[in-house]
């Protein structure tokens, strides 16, 4: 799709980005404040988590001072912000390693899972949505609607468990929990952190097969979940377009159904679809939290849940920051693409 005049729209896009930056920063700041407060309110005592319940008073106070918990709360916040500016998210309470390292360690697993899920979701969701819209009211539409209805009504963690039960425990066609069989762990070099790609790069078919066998079920389940959402939104957008006057014009010209569907209606929803996909990628994080627990997937979701349950403030805040950033970035990308692809927005 050639778009001369795109340079004009690019500058409009970057302008809108700058215009929106202050608002984004405010949101981010608000998010940080919120999570800082949450972090300080956690009922789990972080000092106890480190020193254990049998420590004496001195050790307790020592760690207490170390963590800076004796300072007034606003001072702690300022200190935290200062450290943040240097890219220092503090250290995870339990491992003592920098939070940023820990997050970097677990993020690729989630990214791999999420990307697979979104590919499935979009690859199946969009055509299904278009198909349903075109066949509105007929059996094809009903089938798609039922499938997608099922997809977002089912509790995802339960679905994961039933999947494991049926396909792993009873049928044995997929791998079990975790990313890979223990046997293969650490066999391939960590190029990207994405096992599927790393094993392919190394040409190690056994590892690839094991990794694939483990990712296919959680990936499919998450994929089904986002597919439900994407297909429903696609259908909705398409229906809105198909009732427009310009569709009648297209019919009057003698265009076939397929041409009208893809060349006219679909082109008009592209921008909205991009927004949806960006949002869906973000909401995958939610699903990831639950699915990673079910599948013992060593990813970001599991890391965050464990940190939360253990009262690891630094880790929690770091995670929240990352999630917020991801969401904001995705929204920004979607917004920018809006400007580039829709000629009406200047």
């Amino acid at each position, binding site marked *: 799709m050639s778009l*001369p*005049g795109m340079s004009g729209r690019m500058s409009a896009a970057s302008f809108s980005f700058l215009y929106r930056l202050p608002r984004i920063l405010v949101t981010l700041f608000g998010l940080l404040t919120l999570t800082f407060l949450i972090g300080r309110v956690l009922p789990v005592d972080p000092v106890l988590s480190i020193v254990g319940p049998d420590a004496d008073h001195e050790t307790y106070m020592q760690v207490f001072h170390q963590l800076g918990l004796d300072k007034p709360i606003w001072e702690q916040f300022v200190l935290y912000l200062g450290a943040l500016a240097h890219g220092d998210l503090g250290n995870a309470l339990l491992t003592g390693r920098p939070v940023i390292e820990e997050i970097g360690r677990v993020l690729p697993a989630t990214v791999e899972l999420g990307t697979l899920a979104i590919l499935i979701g979009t690859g199946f969701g969009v055509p299904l949505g278009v198909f349903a819209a075109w066949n509105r009211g007929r059996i094809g539409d009903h089938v798609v609607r039922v499938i997608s209805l099922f997809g977002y009504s089912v509790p995802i963690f339960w679905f994961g468990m039933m999947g494991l039960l049926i396909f792993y425990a009873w049928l044995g066609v997929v791998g079990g929990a975790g990313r890979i069989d223990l046997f293969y762990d650490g066999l391939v070099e960590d190029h990207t952190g994405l096992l599927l790609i790393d094993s392919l790069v190394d040409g190690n078919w056994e590892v690839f097969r094991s990794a694939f066998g483990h990712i296919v079920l959680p990936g499919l389940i998450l994929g089904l979940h986002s597919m439900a959402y994407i297909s429903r939104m696609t259908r909705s957008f398409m229906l809105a377009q198909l009732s*427009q*006057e*310009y569709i*009648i*014009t*297209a*019919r*009057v*010209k*003698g*265009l*076939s*159904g397929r041409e009208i569907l893809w060349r*006219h209606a679909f*082109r*008009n929803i592209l921008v909205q679809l991009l927004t949806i996909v960006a949002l869906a990628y973000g909401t995958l994080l939610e699903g990831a939290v639950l699915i990673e627990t079910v599948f013992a997937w060593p990813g970001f979701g599991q890391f965050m849940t464990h940190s939360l349950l253990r009262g690891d403030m630094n880790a929690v805040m770091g995670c929240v920051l990352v999630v917020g950033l991801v969401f904001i970035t995705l929204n920004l990308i979607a917004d920018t693409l809006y400007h580039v*692809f*829709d*000629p*009406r927005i200047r």
Partner: protein
Amino acid sequence: MTTPKLQVEDLHVQFASEDGMVDAVRGVSFTLGQEKLGIVGESGSGKSTVGRTLLKLHPRTARVNATRLQFDDIDLLSADEKAMQQVRGRRISMILQDPKYSLNPVMRVGDQIAEAFLVHYSVSRTEARKRTLDMIDAVRIRDPERVYNMYPHEVSGGMGQRIMIAMMMIPEPEIIIADEPTSALDVSIRLQVLSVLDDLVRQRGLGLIFISHDLNLVRNFCSRVLVMYAGQVVENIAAADLDNAQHPYTQGLLASLPSLDNRRHRLPVLQRDPSWISV
């Protein structure tokens, strides 16, 4: 007198609604040759439905029946979707009312016009582009090259409607249906657009069906007028003979038109007679 290109006999159209089937068109008959026929009526009279039914653009749940719905050698009533796709644009075309909505917002207007041509004639893209530029010029738009690359929201109402005319004329149809072509335009622009339409229809020897609610406009533009009320044709008369109209509805319409020559203290309001609905 040559056989008319379009023959409509006893056309009935019903739409599905929450309360059952609703009659939109009840027994309409007319013929069309190489002439300008006007169909006048108020909202709900069924005039637009007639136009759309000729191109089989009605919703799937609608019921269409006629003794005859013939265009040339094609029986429109029994034609399937594939056959209709050959007719639409290529042989019968339709100009819609409001270019703000009837043009694809994310496609350049030039490309939209070219597409209308490419659907029915397999030529190269350059050839199609050339023809499009010629067509844009034919509808009296200056600087066709620049306009080709514009998007619908960038053109004015009058220009947009001329682009619509260009788009519908470029595949060289034999009949044009104009569904309220000037109703969405400023009054000052209307005559310009109508003049373009008039010229092209005359130059190419087309048949025109002009659907409107504006009786004055139609009587001056068309040679024959069909007046519709409640889904039926209540008057089928030459435009020149309108003052001798027989049906009270037509007479009422004419009487309520303000006129500079015939100044009245009060314009009469149309009194509806329920007997007009049944025939």
